[in-house]
């Protein structure tokens, strides 16, 4: 049954890896703000009317 012990041992290592990765991402900024990203997605990045004017006719050219 040594396989089982190896399995448990390495599972804990993997689990630890995931946990650490999660904690790191928290401590390193990705989740510093755990609220506004949920709001931000609700806004569409439409174009401002002014920009619309100047960009008329160039729509196709500018696409990237």
């Amino acid at each position, binding site marked *: 049954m040594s396989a089982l012990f190896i399995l448990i041992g390495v599972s804990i290592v*993997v689990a630890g890896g*995931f946990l650490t990765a999660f904690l790191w*991402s928290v401590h390193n900024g990705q989740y510093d703000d755990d609220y506004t990203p949920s709001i931000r997605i*609700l806004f569409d990045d439409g174009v401002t009317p002014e920009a619309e004017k100047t960009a008329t006719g160039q729509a196709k050219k500018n696409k990237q």
Partner: protein
Amino acid sequence: MQAENLYYDNKTAESILSPKMRVERFYYDNTSVKNFAFATITWGVVGMLAGLYAALQLVFPSLNITQYGSFGRLRPLHTNAVIFAFVGNGIFMGVYYSLQRLCKARMYSDVLSKIHFWGWQLIIVAAAITLPLGYTAGKEYAELEWPIDIAITVMWVVFGWNMFGTILKRREKHLYVAIWFYIATFVTVAVLHITNSMELPVTFFKSYSLYAGVQDALVQWWYGHNAVAFFLTTPYLGMMYYFLPKAANRPVYSYKLSIVHFWALIFLYIWAGPHHLLYTALPNWAQSLGVVFSVMLIFPSWGGMINGLLTLRGAWDKVRDDVILKFMVVAVTAYGMATFEGPLLSLKSISAISHYTDWIVAHVHVGALGWNGMLTFGILYWLIPRIFNTPLYSKKMANWHFWLGTLGIIFYAVPMYWAGFTQSAMWKQFTEAGQLKYTFLETVTYMKPFYAMRSLGGTLYLSGTLLMVYNIYKTARAGKLVANEAAEAAPLEKIYKVHKGEHWHRWIERKPVQLMVFSLIVILIGGAIEMIPTFMIKSNVPTISSVKPYTPLELQGRDIYVREGCYTCHSQMIRPFRSETERYGEYSKAGEFVYDHPFQWGSKRTGPDLAREGAGNLKKTNGWHFRHFREPSSMSEGSVMPPYAFMIQDNLDTSTTRAKINAMRILGVPYEAGFENAANANLFKQAKGIADNLKTDSIRVSPNKEIIALIAYIQRMGTDISNEPKNK
């Protein structure tokens, strides 16, 4: 926290104001979104039609028209169409729409988008042609043969390339949680698909799984379960986290919870596969491992479900009025129900009852029709009017669709649950004298009314979908596709630099590509640890000296068994219960399957188990099998099995025998050196024996027909172990 954080870097603040950082104008690619959306709808109808037809075949077996349309070939067509064509295109539709907006960038490459779209559709067409023709690898949800497997891999890489390219050129620093779900989907599905599709080609359309027997089963269900996890669940969760807040116009209930949901889910899911193999010949510890992780899965799953539903807190009046939200609420609720049921089904005591029954069919359809179907419909109704810049043609019709769909799910699920419970109870029922109360056939005929009701549910669901087709068509016609949707955002300046005393892992979190590589490694480790011991440790597969390789004729017969999809209705795995050993003979041992490439344990008993069909009390004459294959109901009245009379006409293709023996030897089957040269002579000799035997039963058939090979295989099943020397 370190003071020198990226976000509070003074230089960052300056650079935002610098002229270099003016807002940029760019255009979202809606053409790809539209293409994937229309493909989703088209293949959805096809997949549901195939499902409905297959369901009706179980009520009216006469609907099995020609070998190309028999249940065993249509069922894989249905599952593949619904999973990889309907949901697959649904994923791409959702990802292409949301990823661009979340990254504030157009998809990385229009060319890749085109290749991805057309390539995926080509794969689906190839599947729709090859599956009815009987080209199958014989593993559930991974039936497609090796050339198509390679094409899938290539297309998946194209998808990933396009996705990561977009992530790399994003204008938004924070990766919204949906993107994490997409990344996990890409990485894990790639690993799953490649690992499970390891096969040795014999001809252009035939291959053998690299794994055999119990190992093949473990790999397959590790794949099978994680296909549910990472193809049907994580991408749709990502879509839920984007489209539900957008449709409700309010942020997700708890963004924090969504992050916890993601990490917990991907960590737990990969280990749950063995719960598909409880009480089988899989080593017990692997079974227990699967159960433990499956039970734990309820926490992230329900966390996600609750997060979705609570997003609508204080806005339930909107749900009453908005059909899109209605679809989404039913979808999330179905997700909750299916993920509550899943952990329960993975408990050994419940699996003992539910496995092999229609209960499982009900369970997966709550997921597929409820979670995947309803969420897809909700997103389509939300997205099509937006990209076509016009209101939805008819809200009333969408409401009708909603109710037809919801009722369809109920009419589907309730009869199937009922059928499952009844089936299981009947299989396990003993008389007071200690004998099995029901023959298997009695349980089959008892199911017919339930199967009929299930078809009604399917019809309702499909008619709702057809209403949607019309509604979307009219909407698209009324509007005009905004092929390139203008947007503006400030670019993201690369501001990171190596800080003093920075932790080594910083590079990983900064770049999605590194992150992907990292997750890939972690997931690979997870899968490998679960499987490698089984490969390595000999004690897991006790070698039974009397188990011998198949004869060439039996091998050919077995390939016919695989080709016809017999495993979609017949298991080859007797569990250690009295009700099963009484009915089918001694329970199955891991060592009996060492030469089975692929394994054929099956997952459903619409028909009886066949593991010992050629041995003990179950053994029947060649003549019985011949007549039964020609017309099953002539031997078993009320049988719903398709007839296989064409095998009496069709010649067995013996040109492949040599290649098959050689391939099997490469895979470790101990055929003697040079046996491939004598294989066909051996085959004809055995075939002639069976044909001669049939003559005594007044059946005249030439020995070179397919039916002879299939009979040879059926008669072989389960005989090895009864030849075991009993000297203990």
